[in-house]
């Protein structure tokens, strides 16, 4: 376990510039030449990605979507579960960088780079799934409203159509936001590198010299983008939630979905940030730039959202019961007691019970404990999406058409594939980009 290191206070007698230099060195040193183990890991992830995802997907396209477990009545399987899961993960990125930036909350600076990177990668993962899940993936472009000789248009009434826009918008914004944040740091990194990579970084830094004028415009732009991105935190996942809320499937067709999903998204997002940053902090020796009490703040956010989610679970049940509607209540009774009860109670345990001890300060400040919790929450949130999507479909209105769904090898393999892709990308990020916003960290030092 790492020993606790507070950021060097200016009052400690050291000249502030020294501290700034220290941060710079810490972050850059995290980027020194990667070892063999690193490459092995990246290579492994890449291999898994190619075999498990690309390979399986190719097979699925060749044979037909039927290699998955989807059936009547459960038309959507874990592809959509993964889609919602990854979009959720993507959320904390915008939240931490944009919203916390606008609120000027300090602890953001330790995580925002990692969070943004995570966002961009997660959205990529999420974006794959709607395509993977199509029965005729090769016609995905029919979902885009483009002028064509058929004189056909897309159906803007369809929530799936809204998704197309929500996700693509989100990807664009988060990529731009991510890159803009990097520009000054590229300039710094450039100074520490030589040879080819120096050229690359300097190109990426777009001739940044850190002049007063550049800083003024930069801050303006960054604030603007932050303003842009902030509403997305609410909008994107609300739209995703409407994929379900707009349907009349009992268990989907409810008004609390938007806030419920957003909270869940932030919840899972924070968890994923912890899962990624705690090891990174250790491995890349960033104890000084990623102080414990910033983790604690993150833990608090997680605890808070966990309670919102838990509240939603309970409210859902009450609503269903109070509606007196046999279809609605039937679904919820089935969730708790039916074929998928283990998934359901697993979800409740991971998302409601496990985070509760975080009320204790000591646990909040124990990285080990946080790490474990975050893993549980990740699993819990995946299960939540599984429960919402699959159980609702498996017992709809007509009893004759009830059925149960079991994920098939191809689906599981593709799921593993995306995780491999995610970690591969994050590893690359961790070595080749400054994992902490150096310039912002410096601002913390006075």
């Amino acid at each position, binding site marked *: 376990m790492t020993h606790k290191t507070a950021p060097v206070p200016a009052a400690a007698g050291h000249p502030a510039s020294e501290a700034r230099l220290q941060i710079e060195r810490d972050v850059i040193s995290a980027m020194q030449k990667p070892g063999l183990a690193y490459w092995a890991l990246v290579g492994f992830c890449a291999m898994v990605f190619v075999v498990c995802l690309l390979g399986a997907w190719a097979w699925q396209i060749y044979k037909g979507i039927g290699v998955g477990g989807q059936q009547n009545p459960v038309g959507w399987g874990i592809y959509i579960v993964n889609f919602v899961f990854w979009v959720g993960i993507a959320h904390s990125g915008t939240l931490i960088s944009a919203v916390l930036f606008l609120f000027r909350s300090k602890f953001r600076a330790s995580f925002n780079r990692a969070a943004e990177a995570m966002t961009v990668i997660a959205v990529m993962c999420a974006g794959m799934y709607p395509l993977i899940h199509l029965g005729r993936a090769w016609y995905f472009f029919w979902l885009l409203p483009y002028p*064509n*000789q*058929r*004189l*056909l248009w897309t159906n803007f009434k369809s929530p799936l159509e809204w998704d197309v826009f929500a996700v693509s918008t989100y990807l664009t914004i988060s990529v731009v936001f991510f890159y803009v944040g990097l520009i000054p740091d590229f300039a710094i990194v450039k100074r520490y590198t030589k040879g080819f990579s120096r050229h690359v970084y300097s190109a990426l830094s777009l001739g940044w010299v850190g002049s007063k004028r550049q800083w003024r415009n930069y801050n303006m732009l960054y604030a603007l983008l932050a303003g842009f991105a902030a509403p997305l935190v609410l909008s994107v996942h609300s739209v995703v939630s409407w994929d379900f809320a707009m349907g009349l499937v009992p268990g989907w067709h409810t008004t609390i979905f938007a806030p419920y999903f957003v909270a869940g998204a932030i919840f899972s997002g924070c968890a994923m940030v912890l899962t990624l940053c705690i090891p990174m902090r250790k491995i890349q020796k960033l104890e000084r730039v990623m102080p414990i009490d910033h983790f604690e703040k993150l833990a608090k956010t997680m605890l808070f959202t966990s309670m919102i989610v838990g509240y939603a679970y309970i409210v859902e049940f009450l609503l269903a019961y109070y509606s007196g509607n046999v279809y609605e209540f039937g679904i919820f009774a089935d969730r708790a007691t039916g074929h998928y009860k283990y998934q359901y109670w697993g979800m409740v345990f991971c998302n409601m019970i496990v985070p509760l001890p975080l009320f204790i300060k000591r646990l909040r400040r124990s990285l080990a404990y946080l790490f474990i919790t975050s893993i549980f929450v990740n699993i819990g949130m995946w299960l939540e999406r599984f429960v919402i999507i699959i159980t609702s479909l498996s017992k709809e209105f007509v009893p004759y058409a009830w059925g149960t769904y079991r994920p098939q090898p191809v689906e599981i393999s593709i799921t593993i594939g995306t995780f491999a892709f995610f970690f591969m990308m994050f590893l690359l990020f961790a070595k080749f980009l400054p994992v902490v916003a150096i310039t912002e960290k410096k601002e913390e030092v006075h």
Partner: protein
Amino acid sequence: MARRVISAAIFGYFALFAVLILLLGFRWHTHRKAPDQPIAFSHEIHVGKLNLQCLFCHEDADKAMTAGVPSMKKCMDCHVAVKTETAGVQQLTEYWNNKEPVPWNRVHRIRIREHVHFSHKRHVSAGVACEQCHGQLAAMPRVRQVSSLKMGWCVSCHTENNAPTDCLICHR
């Protein structure tokens, strides 16, 4: 010197593409649109010179979904006597004598024919002239597909003549 080389290179580069495009265009025109036929039957002569009515040979065009290829008997009714010296007719007679039908090559190919239920009958009885879709056959020694037969092409004509545009009209 160098500049000349460069400009030559650039010119060559584009010239190459120009040639490629021309070749492609040519191939498209001949191959895709006007396939070779086992017998060099000429609409130019039958429609243009002799001006036979379309329905004289394509009897079913106003009765059925498919316009139908004229039966061998139809050909022989005349050619048992007419133009027997020409190579084409001799080929035809040979087929006839061997009781083999002529394996004509389809001119109008639609990629998803499976999904389109087009009725010649309805269009003919609605007063759509054959030329409107099949072009001036009178001027075609060798038939080629003149209309794209793509959906947009159908739909725009339907909308112009406020014919129904319900999908189920063609797709079912």
